[in-house]
């Protein structure tokens, strides 16, 4: 089998649509997962009754079950109890819920390096615990957890490939679907590998910029 560049050029529009879908679903899920992670970590840190054990249970449930099973559950299982998300939002939800669990732990890890003294100083100034967390601990803790959050986000981007199993037309779906009718295996998988590598590098570079920006001293 020879490498057919003309074939790839012909398939470009379909692959491009797949790439846009991969980016769209991943970026929305990344944003949501950070919101989930921050809220979850705050609930755990403030030891909010009921909520804190619930977050703990959520994190354990998600981290100890296969992502593919979670996707099938959200897409096929939830409609049975009346929750019917569209295909796109099923994809976003499964990635966000999955990555959210990891982000809770990432952000908790970041918060754990915030010195006890900073909390005490906040409380001594008359701030409530929630305010101390929001104004003092999170700004520092979130910065500390950027590398870990980036790791989870990269995993999320790569795991978006699983969404082809529920029929979401992401980049991997397009390639697998074309292969099953055109049989150009080499070309399609080569494109997939290169594209995912480029996406992950771009993501790492973007987060590097953010990290460097945030590392500047506060006074500057």
């Amino acid at each position, binding site marked *: 089998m020879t490498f057919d560049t003309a074939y790839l050029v012909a398939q470009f529009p379909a692959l491009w649509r797949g790439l846009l879908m991969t980016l769209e679903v991943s970026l929305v899920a990344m944003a949501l997962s950070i919101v989930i992670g921050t809220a979850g970590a705050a609930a755990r840190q403030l030891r909010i009754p009921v909520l804190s054990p619930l977050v703990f249970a959520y994190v354990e449930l998600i981290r100890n079950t296969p992502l593919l099973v979670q996707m099938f559950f959200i897409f096929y299982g939830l409609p049975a109890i009346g929750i019917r998300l569209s295909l796109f939002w099923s994809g976003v939800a499964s990635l966000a819920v999955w990555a959210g669990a990891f982000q809770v732990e990432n952000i908790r890890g970041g918060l754990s390096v915030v010195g006890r003294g900073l909390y005490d100083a906040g409380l001594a100034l008359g701030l409530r615990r929630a305010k101390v967390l929001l104004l003092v601990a999170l700004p520092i803790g979130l910065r500390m957890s950027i590398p870990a959050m980036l790791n989870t986000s990269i995993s999320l981007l790569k795991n978006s490939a699983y969404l082809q199993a529920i029929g979401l037309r992401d980049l991997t779906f397009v390639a697998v679907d074309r292969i*099953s*009718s055109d*049989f150009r*295996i080499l070309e399609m998988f080569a494109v997939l590998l290169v594209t995912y590598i480029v996406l992950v590098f771009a993501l790492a570079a973007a987060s590097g910029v953010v990290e460097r920006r945030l590392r500047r001293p506060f006074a500057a």
Partner: protein
Amino acid sequence: MKRLNWAGALAVLLCAWGAQAADMPPLPAAIKEAGVLKVGVRCDQPPYGYQDQKGEFAGIEVDMAKTIADWAFGSPSKIEMTCVTADNRIPQLNARKVDLLIATLGMTPERARVIDFTKGYNWGGSDVTVPKDSPIKSLADLKGKTLAVLKGTTQAAWLEAKMPDVDLLKLNSVADGVQAVKQGRAVGFAGDKATAVVIVGRDPALRMVGQPYAITEGGIGVRKNEPEWLAYLNAAIDRMRAEKMFGPWIDKWVPAENRPLFIEAFTTPKPAEG
């Protein structure tokens, strides 16, 4: 008298043997050298090809393969069967893991670009499985609706070409397709009619739409540029027909209630598209 009968019987046998030998073209050297028939069959598609409880290969296409091994090498056990799936069967053939595919392989123009087909040995229609209370009565009712279908199937290709206004939800397994219909993810599941018959038989909450479409013929798949091998297998299919072997195979592998559909598919010519 007895003596004469024996001679007569021998003469008849010799004639029959001579006629058969003349019918079958020579086996290609490469196949002959291997001394064993390396064939790709399905392992998950009863009654075509599957593995029984003991893990033995079983089904109509498996019997076809054993018969070809018998004719080519003098014994049905001179065979090496490999499980192939819908998406890996053509790569398995072209990578020379197997020398032929008898694997529910529909003869489509896309596939004919990468492999060669023998003449067809059966044909299969398609149907759409929908919930019993669905308002869908014909294919035209699917316009603008979401329909579940499996990736790489003839139904997917047919619907994309002929009914572009149907929104396809492309999944990976029959179980996913049925699940999508039952959970309301799709208004119906488009697949082989033979599969639909089994699904509907098992689940009283589902029915078939009953409008035939995407009718394809199943053939044996071989690599490109192997004309001798292709001729041999074409002759084998002719001989299976001449010796009326498909009827007994269907009786052996298909439950009585589904037999008429299979008898029609294996022994009558492909109908024109409805």
